[in-house]
Structures are given as structure tokens and as C-alpha cells.
């Protein structure tokens, strides 16, 4: 199975699943019924239902296209020419550990924004992401993560009048 065909099949399946979820769960539960509606098309559920049905159809089209290519033994458009790769090769080019590390760092960054404040959380996130990306120069690892969040704080606080959450730095910078 070619990587692009597998990807398209997944996209088609995921879209159909999401559209069904929207049509049969999210719209009935998430859209409040205002009561008597004279014209169906004016109801608040009409538009989301139409869009969900449209997505269902498009998901089916993408899935059918991928299946047709698989049956015909043809590669997907993007694997034509110089980019003919198997699924296994495509996956081996991805650094799963580094990617998961980045996701964990993003989640930690968000979680720390309130308790530590935006400046300190940004500093830590920058250092961690720079190291994760392979940066090892101590001067850069020190100057940039301190300088940028602080400069942004000064801009937003004093030029744009935005109140930046300061967390533990509140007693000194507020």
C-alpha cells in the first residue's frame, strides 16, 4: 500500500466518521432548538446539517478515489515522479520521539502559563524547544529565551495596553 493512498483512505474515513458524529450527535445535542420554526432553512440546525452532509459526501469521494487508485495499482498524485515512497519509508523519515517531545512541551507550556506567568513559561519553553531542535550554544540558549519574551511583554504591556499574566513574577513586574 502506497503512503499517499493510505493517507487518503484515512482522510476519507476520518471525514466520514466526523461528519456522522456531527450529523447524529453534535448537531442534535449542541444546537439548541428555538421551538416553532416556520421555515426549515431559517432554523439554527439547518446550516451545520447541510455542511456536515457536504463533508460526508466529500469524505466518501476522497475515500473512493484512494480505493480506486489502490485497485488500479496506481500511486497517488503526490507519490508520482520523484516522490515514490513506500509507507514504511515515509514513516521512518519521521522522528517520533522528537515529535512527541514537542507535543508534551506544548502541553506543558500551556499548563504553566497561568501558574508561572507568560514570561517565565515562554522562557522555559523556548530553551526546551531550542535544545530539542539541536541548539547547543549556551550564549544563544541564554540570551534569546530571556530577551524575546521580556521584549514582547514590554511591547504588549506598554504599547498595546495588554495585561500579560505574570504568575510568579507578578510582585516584581506588575
Amino acid at each position, binding site marked *: 500500500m502506497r503512503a499517499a493512498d493510505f*493517507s*487518503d483512505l484515512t*482522510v476519507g474515513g*476520518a471525514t466520514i466518521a466526523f*461528519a456522522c458524529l*456531527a450529523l447524529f450527535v*453534535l448537531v442534535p445535542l*449542541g*444546537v*439548541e*432548538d*428555538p421551538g416553532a420554526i*416556520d*421555515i426549515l*432553512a*431559517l432554523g*439554527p440546525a439547518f446550516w*451545520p446539517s447541510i*455542511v456536515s452532509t*457536504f*463533508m460526508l459526501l*466529500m469524505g466518501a469521494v*476522497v475515500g473512493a*478515489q484512494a480505493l480506486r*487508485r489502490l485497485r488500479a495499482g*496506481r500511486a*497517488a*498524485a*503526490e507519490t*508520482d515522479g520523484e516522490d515514490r515512497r513506500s509507507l514504511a519509508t515515509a514513516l521512518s*523519515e*519521521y*522522528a517520533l520521539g*522528537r*515529535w512527541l*517531545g*514537542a507535543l508534551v512541551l*506544548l502541553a506543558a*507550556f*500551556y499548563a504553566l*502559563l*497561568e501558574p508561572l506567568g507568560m514570561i517565565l513559561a*515562554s522562557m522555559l*519553553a*523556548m530553551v526546551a*524547544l531550542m535544545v530539542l*531542535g*539541536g*541548539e547547543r550554544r549556551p550564549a*544563544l540558549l541564554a540570551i*534569546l529565551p530571556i530577551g*524575546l*519574551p521580556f521584549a*514582547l511583554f514590554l*511591547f504588549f504591556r506598554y504599547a*498595546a495596553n*495588554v*495585561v*500579560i*499574566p505574570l504568575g510568579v513574577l507578578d510582585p516584581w513586574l506588575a
Partner: protein
Amino acid sequence: MVWTTLQAALEIVLTLEAVLALFGGVVIGTLIGAIPGMTVTMGVALTLPFTFGMHPAVGILLLLGVYKGGVYGGSITAILIKTPGTPAASCTVLDGYPMSRNGEARKALDIALYASCFADFISNVSLILFAGVLASFALRFGPPEYFTLIVFSLTIIAGIAGDNMAKGMISAGIGLLLATMGLDLVYGTNRFVFGEVELMAGLNFIPVLIGLFALPEIINYYAKRFEERGDIQALAGGHATFAEFRRCFKSIFRGSVIGVVLGAIPGIGGAPSAFLSYSEAQRTSKNPENFGKGEIEGVAASEAGNNGTCGATLIPLLALGVPGDIVTAVILGAFMIHGLQPGPLLFEDNLDLIYSLFIGIMISSVFLFIVGKSAIRVFSRVALLPNQILFPVVLVLCVYGGYAVNNNLFDILVMMLIGLLGFAMLRGNIPAAPFLIAYVLGPLLEDNFRQSLLLSHGGLDIFVRNEICMIFWALTALALFLIVRRQRKLPKGAE
């Protein structure tokens, strides 16, 4: 009346703040355009939160500066490292990079700058000439006319959907669905709020925008094991001469006109314009065999076609309130954030703002020339900025920008979740641009549809009530016909 308005506009533009914003915007845009992996859309999205404390005209001018600088900046890396900074600069690679390899990098960059500035100027003049006329015509529009116009504008999606139209439609569907979140405007009931107060106003535009265009690139960078970079050519050779500019002038002028015409049509954008201009230059050249091997006229033609779209894409935005491409969709969001609704009424209620934009946009052509000419060496170094520094910097900019909209950490959560969705779309080869266009136009489409039905008491004949509606339906049908024809012409298997 006109003089008073013009005076008011000059008072806005000829301030230190406005001049600095415009100049700074061009510098930032050129830098962003010169960095491989950064797009103009991403640049405008990241700059948007910095406009909050500014006068609306000054903020919009900053964004326009980023837009124009970014489109030009894309040519720098296209010429020096065979990596177009923007999709529209991909045509510049054809002759720009061979020129660099032949030791004529400086000449290529010079002619790219001259062609860009000239085309930009022509495009700006066309904006000033045609936007007002179109806006006065659009004053006749009611909800049904707007609905049909937006249906036509949604055909933009076909132009930016990429190889797989169905995936572009899925992307648009997600955007349309997310745009329905919040309070229903007709009945005042909740849609997809699920008891969360933060969702009652719907998802804020900026976190969605940043999450969709900046975060997926960051996440994708950390997912990649290897990073490939092209050979970097030295900034070598002599400057382009006036004689060379004169030799290329015909192609530059033709490219500018092509850019204006294609730019004014929603959904076409810079890349097709650059390629059409390039092919016309090659077709009419005395030395067509030199194209692709380092022909200076090829660089000039592609850059003129590319930059000629910049001002013209603002014509439908300012006159009708519909974006001409993805960047103007972001700028439409910026207008809304500053409490303004582009369209014919803007020409009636805020003419001083329109005039100030016109004046500022003309000045931006001059700034583009100054910035490009004086700092080309610095910009060419920017291409070397390592990604392990670039992406953490962009992430912090995203977080500050996402927060600053409403001073609300919830928006950062939205941004990160949309970022993950955007990454999944990136991996699934689903284009993000249709999502954003649909997200911006979705509420307008639904509101005008429902307002029309309220006016007609449910009668669908209101959507064909006059010649304006009929023209937009005909244009929509024509656009769809052309799209289907283009799809059929694609090689089998390349849906």
C-alpha cells in the same frame, strides 16, 4: 469634500507612527518572505496582534507592508538557494537560480526588485482607479446579491484547493462548521457551546488563524528527522544596468497588467499570474531558448506577474468586502477586529481611511524599493537562520499574539488545538487555505442567506430577483465549469 477627506487621510498617513509602521511592515515582510518555511500568510497573521493598539489605518498599513514585503522577499531565496520563500516566487526559481549559479545573483536580485516595485506601483494605481467604481456599484446590493456574490467568492476555494479538490472541500467544510459556533444570530440560541461561556461568541479569528498557519509548521519541524537545504549561492556579480531594465521593460509591463487582471479575480493569486507572465515573455522573446537557463527577462516577467497581483487583490476586498486571496482574507479579519467592515459602505462612512490606505499603499512601493535596494545583503543572510532558533521564536510570538486578542488564556488553548488539527491536515495533505476562506466567509454566507429568506418569507426566488444575482450565478457556473475542465485535463491519478 474630497479635499477635506484627503487632508484627513494625509493627517493619518503622514505621521511618524504610520510611516514607521509601513516601513517596518515592508522590512518584516521581506525578512519573512526570505525565510524558507515562513509564508506571507503566517507573517501577516503573526503581525496582526501587534496592530491592536494602533489607529486602524496604521495597523492595516503595517499588514499591507508585510504583505508586499513578503511577496518580494520570496524571490530572494528563490534566486539564492533555489527555495521560493512564497509559492508565487516558484516561477522566479526557473531563471533566478541559474543566474546565481552563473555568478549573476546580484543582477537577478536587482531586476527582481525593479520588476516587483514597478508591478506593485501599477497594481496600486489600478486599485485606486477601480475600487471606488466597483464600490459605488455595490451599493445596490442587498442580502440576496451578497449571498450570490459570496457563493461566487467561495469558488476561490477551488483555486487554492491544490491537486485534490475534494480535500479542499473537506477543509472548507471544517471552516464552515467551526464558523457556526456561538450564538445563532436569528434566534439567539446556542450552537455547539456545550455550556462553555467562552464559546458563546464563537472561536476568535486570530487564534484560529495563527493555529492554522503557524503552529502546524512548528509541530511538523519537530516531526521531521532530516532537513534538506539547497546550495547557497554567493551574492556575486555586478548590478543590473538601466539598459537591462529597458530590455526587460516590455515583459515587466505586460506582467504587471497580467498581475492586475488575475489579482482582481478572487482565487487566482500570484503563482498562476507569475507563470502566465513568464510564458508570455518566453513566447514573445527573441531568445526563447535562453529561458530556464538564466535569462534576466524571465526573472523580470515572473516577478512582475507575481507582484502585480498585490494591489489588485485588494480591489474585491475594499469594494465588495470579499477577499481576493488568502492574505487578503487575513486582512479582512484585521478590518473586522478594528471594528470596520470592508465593502461599499466603507467608502461612504470611512472615506478618509480608504484614502489613507491608498496613499500609504503608494508610499509602500517606494519603501519596497528602498528596503530591497539597501538591505539585500542582510536579507540574503536571513535564509541561513537555523530552524531550531526560528520555530521556538515563532511559537512564543504565536502565544503572545493569541493571548493579546482578548486577554484570555482560553484563546491559546483554542490556538493549540487548531494547531494540532492543522498538523493533521498537513500530514493528510489537506490544504489549510480553504478552511480559512470558508471560516471568514461562512458567517457572511449564512447571514445573508437567512436574511434573504426572512425578506422573502421563505421564497427561494429572491436569489434570482435581478440581473446582479443572475450575473453572479452565471459567474459561479462559469468558474465551476473551468475548474471541472481543468481537473479533467490533469493527468490520471492526479486528482
